[in-house]
């Protein structure tokens, strides 16, 4: 495929897919180790009322108000989950279940009860996103990467997910030691003066921001898959946290690239005429990688003292 075809049509969706996958996989490493991995699923449900409220307040379908609404809803959900967990003294999974079903229901109710029927908020878009449509029409070939006029026409989703990824990387780099410490041994971390509650909340908020930014571009399927599959597969490749994070980035990129290419060209190789959903294929590839790691990964068994329940 020539540059004049690849750059406008495939480069940006692929890049956005890669950046979204990595932005979700990075905090996913800590969420998986903290047994909070399903928070990605929760977030993708709870953003609905936020999006509806943002629309009701502004009256337009614009990215920024909806992003803010979604992020606001995610933060409210995180605080509610923590509050229910602590006040009700129940396990985090149960608290998440209560909060995300309630907020999703509230979103649906809001959507039905208010004058939003003309708005295009359909299920398919929410699940699979719209990766293939994030094309760069101003580009004519590789040379466009150096052309300021063409660069100005890059899809806004690209810069948004790039900024998000930089923020995620910055957070994890800065708080690496306390994050690692409090994930492994929260009680000990507290005796060192680490504010573990605040740090845990910050981690979930960072994950929520990554989820919302990715959700907007690539849909909730990728968000849920990327929070769990690359980190879980990476855990079985190595026995250090640094190694796990490195492998999770490799797996996230591999899923995004392979998934995008297979979705676009796979059906054609098989003789079919239409491409399949890139987001769905990316999630599928990440699941396959997890299955392979679970079967063949070098660090998938333990040999020491059995886990105490």
């Amino acid at each position, binding site marked *: 495929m020539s540059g004049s075809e690849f750059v406008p049509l495939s480069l940006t969706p692929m890049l956005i897919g890669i950046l979204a996958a990595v932005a979700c996989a990075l905090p996913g490493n800590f969420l998986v180790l903290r047994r909070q991995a399903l928070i990605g699923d929760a977030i993708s449900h709870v953003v609905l009322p936020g999006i509806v409220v943002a629309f009701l307040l502004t009256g337009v379908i614009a990215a920024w108000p909806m992003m803010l609404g979604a992020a606001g809803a995610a933060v409210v959900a995180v605080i509610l989950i923590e509050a229910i967990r602590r006040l009700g003294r129940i396990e985090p999974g149960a608290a998440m279940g209560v909060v995300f079903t309630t907020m999703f229901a509230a979103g649906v109710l809001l959507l039905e009860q208010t004058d939003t029927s003309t708005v295009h908020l359909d299920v398919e878009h929410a699940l699979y996103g719209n990766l293939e449509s994030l094309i760069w029409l101003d580009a004519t070939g590789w040379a466009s990467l150096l052309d300021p006029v063409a660069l100005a026409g890059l899809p806004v989703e690209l810069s948004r997910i790039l900024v998000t990824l930089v923020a995620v990387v910055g957070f994890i780099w800065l708080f690496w030691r306390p994050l*690692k*410490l409090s994930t492994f041994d929260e*009680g000990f971390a507290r*005796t*060192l*003066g680490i504010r573990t509650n605040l740090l845990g909340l910050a981690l979930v908020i960072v994950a929520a921001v990554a989820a919302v930014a990715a959700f907007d571009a690539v849909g909730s399927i990728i968000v849920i898959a990327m929070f769990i599959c690359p980190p879980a597969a990476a855990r079985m490749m190595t*026995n*250090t946290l640094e190694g796990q994070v490195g492998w999770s980035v490799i797996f996230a990129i591999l899923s995004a690239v392979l998934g995008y290419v297979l979705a676009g060209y796979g059906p054609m190789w098989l003789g079919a005429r239409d491409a399949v959903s890139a987001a769905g294929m990316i999630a599928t590839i990440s699941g396959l990688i997890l299955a392979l790691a679970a079967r063949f990964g070098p660090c998938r068994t*333990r040999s020491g003292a059995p886990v*105490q329940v």
Partner: protein
Amino acid sequence: MIELAVREGIRLSDESITDSPLAVRGLTVSYGQKPAVFSVDMTVQPGAMTAIIGPNGAGKSTLLKAALGIVKPLSGQVTVFGRPLEEQRARIAYVPQRASVDWDFPTRVIDVVLMGLYRELGLLGRLSARHKARALDSLARVGMHDFANRQIGQLSGGQQQRVFLARALAQEADLYLLDEPFAGVDAATEKAIISVLKSLKKAGRTVVVVHHDLATVTDYFDHVFLINTRRVAEGPVAEAFTADHLQAAYGGRLATAQVDQLARVLG
């Protein structure tokens, strides 16, 4: 009951602050309706080895956790060497229960020990050869030097406990608080741990241990603190570790076999 504790906590907070390594006044902690620790006073003697003993569910671990700020008490006051806890964090080393963490966590033995140096390293401080040497030295003191690069999931229960103790040693603290360090460990590990604790005492450090094995109290410790939600007794082993106090702390829960065993120990 809880209101009473809150009132008592306020009253007791007026009391003069002692210079004890760990002084607890009017401490009440509750996980639900019923308090786990109720209006407890404790004054740890400097340079002593103190055992916190009591039946299961008596609030031993909770007392330790509340004293360290890990769980939030309903009321009460904690001072460490006569100053508020938050100012004295650098002087405290804590060894949590082995079972409280996930040993499948992807990390190596040396990394766990280096966690004890977090307060010195900070967020981004560079890990120097000197830090590594200190971590290895701590591992050597518990006989785990050769395991430095081992994945923690490969350790036996006793080895896990030694790694936790090495992490506390790396902290070079003045006050060591250990939660059930002898629970479920092999005899060699128990010997190694007690010899390290005794060497700490010899160096003038203060050691407080949540302990469950009544038979070894007189051998290992010089002070005891008996608790059953409330404080039952506190003092030197010879004075406080008596059949009466044990009966008061354990009530009917002390098995006949244990009583016989204790009768032999206590003479």
